[in-house]
């Protein structure tokens, strides 16, 4: 039985009709075409599905869409402002922190959430914040550097 839900995604209000067993990830990608958020492991371990829920990073593959009614979701598509890259996105590009790009949306969102809470994070804090996002390409060093650089700009 479909449920009607209202929520905010990337600053815009949405009214959706979804089956209760569909995850937020499925709804974002399949119903709304917001494919920046990725499915990696379907069990909450890889972090490719990370989005921000009321400013906090969560696993969209493990949360039912009906469970986020009335809340605010931010996906990678909502990070840039008016088509201007966010300072984190710019830092990722400048530092060469992107290789295949699969982990990047999750990493950027986690970085964004971190900087909003702790504008000048130390390296350890950054590493802890991204500890739930796996990257198979970069070895994490450039990603940490990018978030650090963004905190300085």
């Amino acid at each position, binding site marked *: 039985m479909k449920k009607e839900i209202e929520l905010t995604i990337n600053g815009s209000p949405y009214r959706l009709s979804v*089956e209760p067993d569909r*995850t937020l990830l499925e709804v974002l990608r399949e119903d709304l075409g917001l494919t920046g958020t990725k499915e990696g492991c379907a069990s*909450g371990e890889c972090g490719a599905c990370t989005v921000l829920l009321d400013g906090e990073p969560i*696993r969209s593959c493990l949360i039912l869409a009906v*469970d986020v009614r009335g809340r605010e979701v931010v996906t990678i598509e909502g990070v840039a402002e008016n088509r201007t890259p966010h300072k984190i996105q710019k830092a990722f590009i400048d530092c060469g922190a992107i290789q295949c790009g699969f982990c990047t949306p999750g990493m950027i969102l986690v970085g964004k959430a971190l900087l909003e809470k702790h504008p000048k994070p130390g390296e350890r804090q950054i590493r802890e914040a991204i500890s*739930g996002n796996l990257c198979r390409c970069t070895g994490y060093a450039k990603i940490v550097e990018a978030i650090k650089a963004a905190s300085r700009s």
Partner: protein
Amino acid sequence: MENIEYVEPKTVREACALLAKSENAKVLAGGASLVVLLKNKLIFPDQLVNLKTIAGLDRIDPSPEGELRIGALCRHRDIENSPVIQERCEILTQAALSIASPPIRNMGTIGGNICHAEPSADFPPALIALGATLKITGSKQSRTVPIAEFFSDYYENVLEPDEILTEIRIPPLPSFSGGSYLKLNKTTNSVAILGVGAVIGLDESGNCAYAGLGVGGAASTPLAITDAAMLVEKPITSSLIETVASAAVKRCEPISNVHATETYRKEMVGVLARRALTRALEKAERTTKES
């Protein structure tokens, strides 16, 4: 997938009534465990009962008698950040911080962690070491169950179909107490291979007034190592700690799997029990010096 209903009770009574009526309902807290089972088509409930819409299940309240009451819907993140938990039963802060990764901790709940009854779940050994009790509410009555008696088998607990875990109660500890939760896992965020929680409380003369030890991942359920009680009313020596650690090893019946063999698990239970007890003691001794 067949039609699945999603209901949002506003009270515990309403939730229990829904569970009592349905043959095949599942409660939904953080979803960190349930949604995995659902999406991997391992369970087929016809109804999901969302507990997050019930107000008041995520409080952390000290009671006048010194007991600490933790709502079952508290997220791991809430436990991690709670100053009163850090002050009174810091082993829970340690256990919370050891779970998975920050985004999971933003979603998962202590109640879900306990009720999913994974043998290697992180909160149970720490709660066993604290001597916690669980408040369970059903459609007809409430009851309290000591945490050590809550688990019945792999992924099974003693909840009746219409019952919900609502609260975790931590009894007051002696003034000079310390706890240590140690986790053996392959990488920082992976599930525990083993988890050991130890709590030691000392009296003014430095003798042991309380000792608790819990082990996860070494049997079909989390284990209470009741032998820890032999430390009470004695000055704790390393040889006594060794005796308790050996007793813990004897109580285990671990499985072998890709992560670790039975033999290695047994060995590591002894190592972690010894370390956790030693660290808990050190912490307790430090609080006596600070006072």
